[in-house]
């Protein structure tokens, strides 16, 4: 054995051990915020969560002030936000899911051609566009030219543009995991191209596609910035797509800007976080069940 080795073993083992502790410490610091955030929101937010929280629209600032002054919980809830979020997310899904699926299949089917590769790169660029810019775009396109005013439709368009690249990429990636042999088997049986897509590609990759859609939904549910520029917010429950509507994250922003409503922000944030995270977990559990051959 080399003579110089013996004296450095102890030192090297020490450095090795120290580095390991450093790695563990860094990892602990990384996950501490999640416990702090969840804990903080749960402790301060649970009191306002009751039936009225889901069925009543947001109170006005005067009601909130009176309640706070007499030490009661603030009346009202987030019903206008819930319905607004639901309306816009449904509308956005209606636009983005079919378009995203078809484009994803197109890119997968033509993956080697220059045009398809270009579409794929464009999708990657779109995915990186900050959401606030999509708010500007929906403002310029819809608010100024179609609904002539802030509207649920404008909010949906901004959310749909956000969802699109997510769905296109997940569709393509999911389908690429399908063994070529399965496609070839379908063609060997004389299956026409479109039937191969409807009867083989989509059913085989269904849970992967569902995961992609759920993850995209969990992304847009918490989005605030583009909605500030498009849907604006509304104190009442509304289902008119040409009129302003509220959304849960928009309500949080409104509550945050009103010192009388602080306790409602905690509850609304708790609810939003809980909802988005459960959607996220659902997506992941669907993904973990999804395996090929």
């Amino acid at each position, binding site marked *: 054995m080399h003579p110089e080795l013996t004296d450095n073993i102890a030192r090297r083992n020490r450095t090795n051990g120290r580095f390991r502790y450093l790695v563990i410490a860094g*990892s602990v610091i990384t996950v501490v915020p999640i416990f702090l*955030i969840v804990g*903080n929101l749960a402790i301060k937010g649970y009191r306002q969560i009751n039936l009225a929280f889901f069925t009543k629209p947001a109170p006005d600032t005067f009601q909130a002030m009176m309640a706070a002054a007499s030490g009661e919980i603030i009346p009202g809830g987030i019903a206008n936000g819930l319905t607004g979020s639901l309306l816009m997310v449904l509308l956005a899904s209606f636009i983005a899911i079919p378009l995203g699926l078809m484009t994803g299949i197109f890119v997968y089917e033509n993956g080697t051609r220059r045009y398809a590769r270009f579409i794929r790169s464009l999708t990657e660029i779109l995915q990186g566009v900050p959401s606030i810019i999509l708010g500007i*775009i929906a403002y310029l396109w819809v608010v100024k030219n179609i609904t002539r005013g802030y509207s649920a439709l404008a909010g949906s368009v901004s959310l749909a543009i956000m969802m699109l690249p997510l769905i296109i990429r997940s569709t393509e990636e999911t389908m690429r995991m399908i063994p070529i042999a399965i496609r070839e088997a379908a063609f060997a049986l004389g299956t026409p191209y479109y039937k191969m897509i409807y009867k083989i590609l989509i059913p085989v990759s269904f849970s992967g596609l569902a995961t992609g859609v759920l993850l995209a939904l969990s992304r847009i549910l918490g989005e605030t910035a583009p909605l500030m520029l498009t849907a604006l917010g509304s104190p009442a429950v509304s289902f008119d797509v040409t009129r302003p509507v509220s959304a849960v994250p928009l309500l949080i*922003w409104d509550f945050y800007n009103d010192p009388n409503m602080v306790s409602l922000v905690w509850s609304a944030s708790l609810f939003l*976080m809980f909802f988005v995270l459960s959607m996220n977990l659902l997506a992941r559990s669907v993904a973990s069940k999804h395996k090929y051959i």
Partner: protein
Amino acid sequence: MSGDRITKALLFISSLTILLLGAGIVLSLFGGAIPAFREFGLKFIVSPAWNPTTGSEEYGALSFIAGTVITSILALIICIPMAFSTSLFIAEYYNGTRTSSILRSLVDLLAGIPSIVYGFWGFYALRPLLVATGLSDQGFGVFTASLVLAIMIVPYATSLSAEIISMVPAELKEAAYSLGATRREVIFSVVIPSARSGIIASFILALGRALGETMAVTMLIGNANVIPKGLFAPGNTMASVIANQFGEASGLKLSALIAVGLLLFLITAIVNALGKLIIKRFA
């Protein structure tokens, strides 16, 4: 075979809408920004002035570019040690164990929390802490925003780095172990050299996310339309000035805000493209 032709045409048309969407975004931003650039020329980019008073209107994006770059870089600096150790924990030290998958899910959860919740939490929980340290009077400013931004981008950098670290061939690591290297030595002499470009790319992509983050930053940076004078001084980022002022803007100011948006779009597109390019080279 008309079913085939219809299907193929449908798929092609939907891909065209993406093309139109991409072109439309760029053209609309350019179109909306034209009045501002016609009025101020390239001075718009290098001037820190932001004066909406009618009659003496003057707009420049420099304060916001500075605010965006400073907060994002600072967030990246804070994020690097956290993401680096977490990715080593997941993909190297505890790779394949339950502990690793629990940590991975926790990091994923961190990515799932909405931006506005981060902002609100930073406002009520983190800001008082900073005030208590005496470093800042009100707790608003570049540092607070960067700290929360760092927590927000850690999951992106971590999951990508971890994926790349776990792709380093086991055979190479085993060769180094069999020569008597310690784990730390294997990490620094084999794992990092093989995964270097991928790890760098994951941090570049995390930076891309930080540049465009809006709500949390808007709630914490203090919203002062000046170049930040220090780490604890208030400022404004490109995204946060749009979020704050777009609603009441019209005319030249609206155009100036769209121009800020255009610049933000270009910066994030360049940073993201760079990250993706490095990743593609790596794979």
